């Protein structure tokens, strides 16, 4: 199987700060990865670089068979040609941390946005596209709100709508930047389980998470970013340990086992 992400000797730098150095890594279909690290170590930067949304500093990245050329161009827009931008958009999705809605719009409209990469220039959304969006809204528990104005949603509902937009896009690779923000506990579990179902086939997931308990519960793999270019990647049952996490967060953590599940609490 071709990996969905493969990097070789990647260097990602932001504002003079190294996020990861000599980063060689692959994500295979069916894998779930959690990215853990302190605030400001560059978890989002790395994720955006992998999504092809910002240029890396050096090295090679291939995402969904698209070679994201590493260019020294300092512009915000990665210098990807339109064709690869589009084929990338058909296969990988990216959940940003913030969602803004400067203009009024309905929930259904916002979910349908995810169909864009699959539509031709003159196409309009068909009944099939609407059905996909409706199913996605139902999956995140927003079925009844399809005609609601986006501005009237709560923070958690808006976050779930962003997840629904991702599902509507029907990608193979999910790149999620803090997918659980604003969600209550039951929806945190629901959203993680939903993504786990989606990645059982040939899809994969890479998510920035803040709770190591969730990371070990839902992701078999973890990537720890220590903040000085150092990183550690591997099976989460091995590398997500109280010792590594204490070093990662710069705060002592204690591991608690219950019903064969491991949770970590700050001392």
């Amino acid at each position, binding site marked *: 199987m071709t990996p969905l992400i493969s990097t070789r000797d990647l260097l990602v730098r932001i504002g003079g700060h190294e996020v990861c150095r000599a980063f060689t890594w692959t994500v295979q279909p069916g894998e779930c990865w959690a990215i853990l690290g302190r605030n400001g170590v560059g978890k989002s930067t790395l994720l955006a670089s992998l*999504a092809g*949304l910002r240029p890396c500093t050096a090295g090679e990245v291939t995402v969904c068979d698209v070679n994201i050329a590493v260019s020294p161009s*300092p*512009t*915000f*827009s990665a210098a990807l040609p*339109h064709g690869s*931008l*589009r084929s*990338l*958009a*058909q296969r990988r*999705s*990216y959940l*940003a941390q913030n*969602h*803004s*809605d*400067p*203009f*009024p*719009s*309905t929930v*259904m*409209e*916002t979910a*349908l*946005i*995810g169909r*864009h*990469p699959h*539509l031709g*220039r*003159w196409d*309009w*959304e068909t009944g099939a596209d609407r059905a996909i969006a409706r199913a996605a809204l139902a999956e995140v528990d927003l079925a009844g709100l399809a*005609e609601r104005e986006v501005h009237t949603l709560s923070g958690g509902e808006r976050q779930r709508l962003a997840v629904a937009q991702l599902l509507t*896009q029907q990608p193979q690779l999910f790149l999620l930047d803090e997918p659980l923000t604003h969600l209550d506990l039951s929806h945190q579990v629901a959203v993680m389980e939903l993504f786990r179902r989606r990645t059982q086939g040939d899809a994969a997931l890479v998510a920035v998470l803040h709770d190591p308990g969730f990371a070990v519960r839902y992701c078999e793999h973890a990537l720890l970013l220590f903040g000085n270019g150092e990183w550690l990647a591997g099976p989460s049952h091995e590398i997500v340990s109280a010792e590594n996490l204490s070093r990662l967060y710069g705060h002592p953590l204690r591991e608690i086992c219950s019903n064969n599940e491991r949770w970590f609490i700050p001392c």
Partner: protein
Amino acid sequence: MPSRRHALSVLALLLALAGISFIVALAAGSIAVTFDDLLAALFGATFDHMGGNTLAVEVIRGLRLPRALGAFAVGGLLALAGALMQVLLRNPLADPYVLGISGGAAVGALLAMLSGLALFFVNLAAFAGAFAAMLTVFGLAHGDSSWTRTRLLLTGVIVAAGCGAVVALILSIAPEAQLRGMLFWLMGDAGQVSEPRPALLVLAAGLLIALPFARELNLLARGELLAQTLGVPVAGVRRGVYFLAALLTATAVTTAGSIGFIGLVVPHLTRLGLMKLGWGNDQRLLLPAAALAGGSLLVLADTLARTVAAPQQLPVGVLTALIGVPVFLFLLGREKSA
């Protein structure tokens, strides 16, 4: 989100509104016009046997029709440019003039008037001024290639303020006799339209260029990052939108001076109307709908401007604001209580 069929029916309705506005514009005025005169004027030889009143036919063909066509083109241009600017700046308060294009045109036009040049050169100077302002803003905002919205907006606003100061300076040193013409130009006046065809052509071309990218614009309005994630070449589309909006605005301002209000409010009115129908904010429908609505509105406003206090002619820019402000506030108020 509307289906294609819904969108076409809305546009057909707006096209009918545009037709009505033209009939009103051609029929209204100090010289009475019959239906036969209208047909004779519009369709020429075919209806000559009806023997339309020749004076009326002349007035329609020579005066009212070019003026109405010019007003329609300018209204459409401003509304389309406004809708594009609002997407580009992701700011509902943006209008075609916010980036200083009308200011540049005003400086050019007023300088030409001050030197006593003919109308053709005034128009030329206005267009040159608009173009210079557009390039200045683009060059300065694009300087270090980090083309952020805030930087663009700030540069535009500052350039507009500078132009405003120059306009005030020209007005204060201009001889008494030229002041009235200058003020009319500044307030916007469709009476100065001599040749409506270039503006109509630019409007049609602008719509044809913008419409294939309308879904990309939908995404851009929601955020650059999201648009790029979903495969929109953001930098190129933004540059295209900027230059298209600037060209539309420059054409409108050159044709009839800086008519206010249409560019800001018509896109909002259209958006409000479409939202009420449950069809949301889809640029594929919004752009042509705003162009049609803006054109019709300006034709009606201009007709009112030349008839309401006849023989005195009012500058249409004043009227668009006087009618539009209460209508808009009313709609906005109802929106809140709903």
